[in-house]
Protein backbone atom coordinates (compact mmCIF):
# COMPACT_ATOMS: atom_id res chain seq x y z
CA UNK A 1 0.00 0.00 0.00
CA UNK A 2 1.12 3.53 -0.65
CA UNK A 3 1.50 5.80 2.33
CA UNK A 4 3.22 8.79 3.81
CA UNK A 5 4.32 9.24 7.39
CA UNK A 6 4.84 12.42 9.34
CA UNK A 7 6.78 11.36 12.42
CA UNK A 8 6.21 14.57 14.39
CA UNK A 9 2.80 15.58 15.69
CA UNK A 10 4.11 19.05 16.49
CA UNK A 11 7.12 21.17 15.62
CA UNK A 12 8.01 24.25 17.61
CA UNK A 13 10.38 26.88 16.24
CA UNK A 14 11.28 30.45 17.06
CA UNK A 15 10.50 33.18 14.55
CA UNK A 16 13.41 33.80 12.22
CA UNK A 17 14.86 30.32 12.70
CA UNK A 18 14.82 27.69 9.96
CA UNK A 19 12.07 25.12 10.09
CA UNK A 20 11.78 21.54 8.89
CA UNK A 21 8.63 19.43 8.80
CA UNK A 22 9.43 15.79 8.08
CA UNK A 23 7.73 13.38 5.72
CA UNK A 24 8.67 9.92 4.55
CA UNK A 25 6.89 7.95 1.87
CA UNK A 26 6.30 4.37 0.83
CA UNK A 27 5.19 3.85 -2.76
CA UNK A 28 5.49 1.44 -5.64
CA UNK A 29 7.22 3.16 -8.50
CA UNK A 30 7.93 6.85 -8.79
CA UNK A 31 6.22 9.01 -6.19
CA UNK A 32 4.11 12.07 -6.81
CA UNK A 33 4.44 14.05 -3.57
CA UNK A 34 2.64 17.13 -2.31
CA UNK A 35 2.61 19.46 0.66
CA UNK A 36 -0.54 21.23 1.81
CA UNK A 37 -1.13 23.67 4.67
CA UNK A 38 -4.34 24.02 6.64
CA UNK A 39 -5.15 27.05 8.74
CA UNK A 40 -7.86 26.77 11.43
CA UNK A 41 -11.33 26.37 9.95
CA UNK A 42 -9.96 26.65 6.44
CA UNK A 43 -9.43 24.35 3.51
CA UNK A 44 -6.12 22.87 2.47
CA UNK A 45 -3.85 25.14 0.48
CA UNK A 46 -1.40 23.70 -2.01
CA UNK A 47 2.24 24.58 -1.22
CA UNK A 48 4.38 22.56 -3.59
CA UNK A 49 4.81 19.24 -5.36
CA UNK A 50 7.51 16.88 -6.55
CA UNK A 51 6.88 15.07 -9.80
CA UNK A 52 10.29 14.63 -11.36
CA UNK A 53 13.46 16.60 -11.96
CA UNK A 54 15.31 18.68 -9.40
CA UNK A 55 15.28 17.24 -5.92
CA UNK A 56 14.80 20.71 -4.40
CA UNK A 57 11.33 22.01 -5.09
CA UNK A 58 10.33 25.59 -4.40
CA UNK A 59 6.78 26.51 -3.53
CA UNK A 60 4.53 29.18 -2.13
CA UNK A 61 5.26 31.51 0.80
CA UNK A 62 9.00 30.81 0.74
CA UNK A 63 8.64 27.09 1.41
CA UNK A 64 10.73 24.46 -0.29
CA UNK A 65 11.02 20.70 -0.03
CA UNK A 66 13.84 18.30 -0.66
CA UNK A 67 13.14 14.98 -2.30
CA UNK A 68 15.54 12.25 -1.21
CA UNK A 69 15.03 8.96 -2.98
CA UNK A 70 17.54 6.96 -0.96
CA UNK A 71 15.92 8.02 2.29
CA UNK A 72 12.38 8.02 0.83
CA UNK A 73 11.85 11.44 2.33
CA UNK A 74 10.26 14.70 1.26
CA UNK A 75 10.90 17.16 4.06
CA UNK A 76 9.37 20.63 4.00
CA UNK A 77 11.70 23.50 4.81
CA UNK A 78 11.82 27.24 5.18
CA UNK A 79 14.97 29.26 5.89
CA UNK A 80 13.30 31.77 8.21
CA UNK A 81 10.01 30.99 9.96
CA UNK A 82 7.23 33.52 10.48
CA UNK A 83 4.61 33.52 13.21
CA UNK A 84 2.02 33.44 10.41
CA UNK A 85 3.41 30.07 9.27
CA UNK A 86 1.81 28.49 12.33
CA UNK A 87 -0.66 25.96 10.93
CA UNK A 88 -1.24 22.29 10.25
CA UNK A 89 0.91 20.83 7.49
CA UNK A 90 0.03 17.71 5.51
CA UNK A 91 2.28 15.67 3.31
CA UNK A 92 0.46 13.66 0.64
CA UNK A 93 1.19 11.12 -2.07
CA UNK A 94 -0.81 10.46 -5.18
CA UNK A 95 -2.50 7.03 -5.12
CA UNK A 96 -1.54 5.26 -8.31
CA UNK A 97 -2.34 1.66 -7.44
CA UNK A 98 -5.06 -0.43 -9.00
CA UNK A 99 -5.99 2.02 -11.69
CA UNK A 100 -6.69 4.78 -9.21
CA UNK A 101 -7.47 8.13 -10.73
CA UNK A 102 -5.07 9.79 -8.40
CA UNK A 103 -6.72 10.67 -5.14
CA UNK A 104 -4.38 11.93 -2.45
CA UNK A 105 -3.26 9.86 0.51
CA UNK A 106 -2.41 12.15 3.41
CA UNK A 107 -0.11 11.85 6.37
CA UNK A 108 -1.48 12.48 9.85
CA UNK A 109 -0.38 16.10 9.76
CA UNK A 110 2.18 18.11 11.72
CA UNK A 111 1.21 21.13 13.72
CA UNK A 112 3.77 23.88 13.29
CA UNK A 113 3.99 26.48 16.02
CA UNK A 114 6.20 29.52 15.45
CA UNK A 115 6.79 31.68 18.52
CA UNK A 116 7.81 35.34 18.39
Amino acid at each position, binding site marked *: AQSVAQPEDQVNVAEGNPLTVKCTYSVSGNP*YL*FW*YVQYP*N*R*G*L*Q*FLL*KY*ITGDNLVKGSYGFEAEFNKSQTSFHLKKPSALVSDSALY*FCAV*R*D*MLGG*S*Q*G*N*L*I*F*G*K*GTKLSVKP
Partner: protein
Amino acid sequence: AAGVIQSPRHLIKEKRETATLKCYPIPRHDTVYWYQQGPGQDPQFLISFYEKMQSDKGSIPDRFSAQQFSDYHSELNMSSLELGDSALYFCASSLGTAHSYEQYFGPGTRLTVT
Protein backbone atom coordinates in the same frame (compact mmCIF):
# COMPACT_ATOMS: atom_id res chain seq x y z
CA ALA B 1 -8.40 33.82 -9.02
CA ALA B 2 -11.55 31.76 -8.71
CA GLY B 3 -11.44 29.01 -6.13
CA VAL B 4 -13.45 25.94 -5.30
CA ILE B 5 -16.80 26.84 -3.76
CA GLN B 6 -18.59 24.64 -1.29
CA SER B 7 -22.02 25.09 0.19
CA PRO B 8 -23.22 25.19 2.79
CA ARG B 9 -20.23 26.02 4.96
CA HIS B 10 -21.91 24.69 8.07
CA LEU B 11 -24.70 22.17 8.46
CA ILE B 12 -26.37 20.76 11.54
CA LYS B 13 -28.51 17.65 11.17
CA GLU B 14 -30.06 15.10 13.47
CA LYS B 15 -29.43 11.38 13.36
CA ARG B 16 -31.20 9.56 10.55
CA GLU B 17 -31.69 12.77 8.57
CA THR B 18 -30.30 13.42 5.11
CA ALA B 19 -27.86 16.07 3.90
CA THR B 20 -26.68 17.34 0.54
CA LEU B 21 -23.32 19.03 0.12
CA LYS B 22 -22.49 20.95 -3.02
CA CYS B 23 -19.19 21.66 -4.71
CA TYR B 24 -18.43 24.06 -7.54
CA PRO B 25 -14.98 23.41 -9.03
CA ILE B 26 -12.60 25.98 -10.40
CA PRO B 27 -13.73 26.99 -13.92
CA ARG B 28 -12.50 24.53 -16.59
CA HIS B 29 -11.63 21.91 -13.98
CA ASP B 30 -13.31 18.67 -14.96
CA THR B 31 -12.28 16.47 -12.04
CA VAL B 32 -13.75 16.57 -8.56
CA TYR B 33 -12.65 14.71 -5.43
CA TRP B 34 -14.48 14.44 -2.12
CA TYR B 35 -12.64 13.96 1.17
CA GLN B 36 -13.79 13.57 4.76
CA GLN B 37 -11.74 14.92 7.65
CA GLY B 38 -12.77 13.81 11.10
CA PRO B 39 -11.77 15.81 14.20
CA GLY B 40 -8.00 15.77 14.54
CA GLN B 41 -7.68 13.42 11.58
CA ASP B 42 -6.14 13.57 8.14
CA PRO B 43 -8.46 13.85 5.14
CA GLN B 44 -9.74 10.54 3.82
CA PHE B 45 -10.72 10.09 0.19
CA LEU B 46 -14.37 9.30 -0.47
CA ILE B 47 -15.07 9.45 -4.19
CA SER B 48 -14.04 11.21 -7.39
CA PHE B 49 -15.49 12.15 -10.73
CA TYR B 50 -13.96 12.89 -14.10
CA GLU B 51 -16.00 14.31 -16.94
CA LYS B 52 -19.24 13.58 -15.11
CA MET B 53 -18.42 9.92 -14.57
CA GLN B 54 -17.41 8.33 -11.30
CA SER B 55 -13.72 7.64 -11.63
CA ASP B 56 -12.69 6.23 -8.28
CA LYS B 57 -14.15 5.18 -4.98
CA GLY B 58 -12.57 5.26 -1.57
CA SER B 59 -13.98 4.75 1.89
CA ILE B 60 -17.43 6.10 1.11
CA PRO B 61 -20.27 4.48 3.08
CA ASP B 62 -23.13 2.91 1.13
CA ARG B 63 -25.40 5.52 2.75
CA PHE B 64 -23.61 8.19 0.75
CA SER B 65 -23.87 8.83 -2.96
CA ALA B 66 -22.53 11.50 -5.23
CA GLN B 67 -22.69 12.71 -8.77
CA GLN B 68 -21.17 15.27 -11.07
CA PHE B 69 -23.44 17.33 -13.27
CA SER B 70 -23.12 18.72 -16.78
CA ASP B 71 -21.71 22.00 -15.45
CA TYR B 72 -19.11 19.95 -13.51
CA HIS B 73 -20.44 20.83 -10.10
CA SER B 74 -20.82 17.90 -7.77
CA GLU B 75 -23.15 16.95 -4.96
CA LEU B 76 -22.58 14.56 -2.09
CA ASN B 77 -25.80 13.07 -0.77
CA MET B 78 -25.76 11.60 2.70
CA SER B 79 -28.63 9.61 4.15
CA SER B 80 -29.39 7.98 7.50
CA LEU B 81 -26.87 10.25 9.14
CA GLU B 82 -24.94 8.91 12.10
CA LEU B 83 -23.07 10.74 14.84
CA GLY B 84 -19.83 9.48 13.34
CA ASP B 85 -20.54 11.34 10.12
CA SER B 86 -19.75 14.61 11.91
CA ALA B 87 -16.71 15.89 10.08
CA LEU B 88 -15.32 18.46 7.70
CA TYR B 89 -16.09 17.52 4.10
CA PHE B 90 -13.77 18.86 1.47
CA CYS B 91 -14.18 19.03 -2.23
CA ALA B 92 -11.12 19.41 -4.43
CA SER B 93 -10.87 20.00 -8.15
CA SER B 94 -8.19 19.56 -10.77
CA LEU B 95 -7.75 19.92 -14.48
CA GLY B 96 -7.86 16.27 -15.49
CA THR B 97 -6.67 13.23 -13.61
CA ALA B 98 -2.99 13.30 -14.52
CA HIS B 99 -0.97 12.40 -11.49
CA SER B 100 1.19 15.47 -11.80
CA TYR B 101 -1.75 17.82 -11.37
CA GLU B 102 -2.31 19.34 -7.96
CA GLN B 103 -5.73 19.38 -6.43
CA TYR B 104 -7.26 22.62 -5.23
CA PHE B 105 -9.40 22.38 -2.15
CA GLY B 106 -12.51 24.25 -1.17
CA PRO B 107 -13.05 25.69 2.32
CA GLY B 108 -15.04 22.65 3.37
CA THR B 109 -18.48 21.98 4.80
CA ARG B 110 -18.58 21.32 8.50
CA LEU B 111 -21.31 18.78 9.18
CA THR B 112 -22.49 18.26 12.74
CA VAL B 113 -24.85 15.38 13.43
CA THR B 114 -26.67 15.55 16.76
